[in-house]
């Protein structure tokens, strides 16, 4: 999104303009949901967290700074909501490694994620990502998938850029290993 467009949308949102909200939702809605789905590995939780993120955006709209960067703002809120959800619901612990997937365990039909992951590499990537620790997964999703700079990702995760770089390097190595191991299977 162009910076000028972003500034205009923030201004519109601060003034309560529904069209500005729609434009922001069109730009980030699917991306935010996909980020949360891959991060949480649960569609239902991802939908809840995405919804809460958008509600927080509009609730805070009048208080937004005119120079707010919408992407980092939205992803930081979404990421923090996921952390809170993990703490309160023990989501991570509730998942058995054998059931790792991007859909709720025990789903009666193949999930759209699984159907869409028909490509072999893509499927291996999705499974490799899902098997990583959440801290590794989030940095790969933010930098690798969403294209945030390491500095922006560090701000979103609330860590120093140096810590993020180390985490990113470790996560890339783990994912490469996971994909490689699955190739050998």
């Amino acid at each position, binding site marked *: 999104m162009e910076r000028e467009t972003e500034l205009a949308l923030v201004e519109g949102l601060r003034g309560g303009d529904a069209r500005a909200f729609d434009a922001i939702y069109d730009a980030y809605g699917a991306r935010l949901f996909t980020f949360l789905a891959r991060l949480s590995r649960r569609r239902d939780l991802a939908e809840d967290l995405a919804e809460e993120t958008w509600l927080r955006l509009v*609730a805070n709209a009048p208080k937004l700074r005119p120079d707010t960067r919408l992407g980092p703002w939205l992803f930081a809120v979404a990421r923090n909501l996921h952390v809170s959800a993990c703490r309160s619901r023990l989501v991570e612990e509730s998942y058995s490694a054998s059931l790792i997937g991007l859909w709720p365990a025990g789903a009666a039909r193949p999930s759209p994620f699984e159907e869409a992951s028909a490509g072999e590499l893509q499927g291996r990537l999705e499974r490799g990502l899902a098997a990583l620790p959440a801290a590794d997964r989030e940095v790969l999703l933010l930098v690798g998938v969403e294209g945030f700079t390491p500095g922006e990702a560090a701000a979103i995760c609330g860590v120093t850029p140096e810590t993020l770089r180390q985490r990113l390097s470790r996560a890339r190595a783990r994912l490469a290993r996971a994909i490689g191991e699955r190739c050998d299977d």
Partner: protein
Amino acid sequence: MTEIDRVLSALPVYGPDRTRTARLRARCHGTLRDRSPTRRLEPALVIGACVAYLSGVIQAALLLYGS
């Protein structure tokens, strides 16, 4: 950009449930309407108009019956 980042950037984007999205949009529009600066001024304007009207009524009553 590393090889891992390159393949990650090619992963598809998925969408949330459409019905839920429509509901969410409507809810957010409503919240924005309620929180917009114009909307927040409305109660003050209504109260101001009421006070002005009552002042006028009292003034007229005093003029009529006061003397």
